[in-house]
């Protein structure tokens, strides 16, 4: 199988604080969910995959290429889309201008950048609002614009950090459809602490605790490991809490 990304023995941290230790994971095309409590290291892992910060230890291979040099990183960045948890934008830009600008930053060829921006906006359902200023968008629309900037161009790896925060239930349903659509063409790594989002949209799950993977498998496999004493309203939530309490398991 061709993996879009592979991580081996990753260690990451800030200053003297170690956030991730010896983490390994990999993903092919499709949606991958990262579950874990606050402070588990999900955002740090996504920032590392997005190449915001180089790993302290371990290897990262994206599209089969290990990221060793600046040139490797720059080449990989052309195909990585990233929506940070605290997504920022230039409020004076129109929605189209902003996504078009992000296409330029991703080095999407000039002749196709405009079309790519329109296509991304169409995918997230913002095509009709392309002339609206970013500062005029509601929280849900802003999140969708953030996803549009993450998927514009020939993106093969989409990293979404808490993308459903601030979305109302209907928007979250639409969002899940969108993830299914995008994951047909790329690997989508979705970080969240909302179990039902991953269950609905992702084919693979990684549960992370204290910077280490404590479960990896499909949502069904996690459900099959049902533990009667797990806390939660749904089987998946109960299994998730069970996984967090147990040591690392791989289905």
């Amino acid at each position, binding site marked *: 199988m061709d993996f879009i990304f592979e991580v081996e023995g990753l260690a990451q941290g800030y200053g003297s604080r170690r956030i991730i230790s010896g983490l390994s994971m990999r993903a092919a095309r499709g949606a991958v969910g990262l579950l874990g409590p606050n402070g588990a290291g999900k955002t740090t892992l996504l*920032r590392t995959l*997005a*190449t*915001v910060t180089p790993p302290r230890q371990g290897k990262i291979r994206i599209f089969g290429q290990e990221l060793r040099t*600046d040139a490797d990183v*720059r*080449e990989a*960045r*052309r195909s*990585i889309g*990233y929506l*940070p948890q*605290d*997504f*920022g*934008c*230039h*409020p004076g830009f129109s929605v189209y201008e902003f996504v078009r600008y*992000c296409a*330029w*930053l*991703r*080095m999407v060829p000039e002749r196709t950048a405009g079309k790519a921006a329109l296509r991304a906006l169409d995918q997230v359902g913002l095509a009709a609002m392309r002339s609206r200023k970013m500062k005029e968008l509601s929280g849900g629309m802003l999140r969708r614009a953030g996803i549009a*900037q993450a998927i514009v161009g020939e993106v093969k790896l989409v990293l979404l950090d808490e993308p459903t925060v601030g979305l109302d239930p209907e928007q979250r349903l639409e969002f899940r459809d969108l993830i299914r659509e995008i994951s047909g063409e790329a690997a989508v790594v979705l970080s969240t602490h909302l179990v039902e989002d991953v269950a609905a949209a992702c084919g693979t799950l990684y549960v992370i605790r204290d910077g280490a993977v404590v479960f990896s498998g499909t949502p069904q496999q996690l459900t099959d490991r049902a533990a009667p004493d797990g806390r939660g309203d749904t089987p998946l939530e109960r299994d998730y809490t069970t996984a967090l309490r147990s040591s690392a398991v791989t289905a």
Partner: protein
Amino acid sequence: MWAWGQGWYLVWPEASAMAANASTYFAAAILAGMAAWSAQRDVRNGMRDQLTVVARRHWQTESAHLTATLIYAWSGIVVFSIAAILVASGSAGAGFFWPSYPLSVFTTLTVCVASGHVVGRLWPSRITAPLVAAAVLVIQFMTPTNAPFDFSAVTGPARLELNNEALLARCAFAAGVVVLAVLLRSTTAQSRSWARPLALLTSVAGLLAWVTLSGSLQVARTPPAKPLCAEPGAGAPMVCLWPENSVYLGTVLEAARRVSKAAGGAVPLPKVYYDSGLKPDGTLHPYFTALPEVDAITTSMALSGFLPPGKCPDTSDAAMAARYDIGGSVWVWHAAVAKGVRQVGTDDSFILPPAVAKEVDAILAKPMAEQRAWAKKQVKRTWVGCNG
């Protein structure tokens, strides 16, 4: 702004200098502050992570950002230059719009904007932009005119031109600051040592040293072999102007006629009155400053045309000053008669010590024949002991 009101801008170099000044007056400070504010927009808008992971190189994104800010700055120069060309083209004589002045302001604005960008990048804070603007404003007003590190010329008289080397040094410095602004982020991000940023800063400091050593921004022009000369007639001295000041020829001739008529043989007149800086031997007197007002030219001709007939036996500056004090009232009287002023003590165009004003007013109250006799006597007293 005085120049626009008085028609000074009708001369090419002055129009060019005005276009340059209008572009920088306060604009430099505001644009520097704007650049500092704009440079922080990635941080302010929470886009630092997003922009860290872009495929494009940092220098490219910085270039695009800085160019956008610079275009705002440069557009003012274009607008004011076009305005100056439109206003002056109908009346100005020889010499096309002087591009060196807009080029000098181009470097000024580029340096201000690029510096603001650098400061905004290095110290993202709400107070950075107003501080940068205030700093530029203070530097602008504190810098003495024509100081070695001055970046803009306030006026553009025909007798002066911009120093090519100084201009080149300023262009190089502006380019250096732009390169610093564009590369600083990528050098600090990629190499974790300070070697590259330090090398950049050293290069820019070297260019600033060149600016300081390159001399004054404005230098005297070499007079043309054939200046614009004309005879006023009626026995008045000839006048010679810089070709660029040809629009003032009529006014200058009228002033020369007035001065000649007022002298009436009592006050000696030179053979030629030269436009400021035009005299072939490089000396100043007798000169006039070409301006649109005949009264102003009359005053400058009357006051500057009174020259010693030969070498005077003064052994010190004080002795020479005492000699000129004796004749000072004659020069004032001559200017007053030429301008038709009856009382210099109450005329705003004369700023005189009370004793001189009183003496001249007393003379002006007498019949013209007596006035001339007094002037003749006073001239002899002034130059007593001088050869020639």
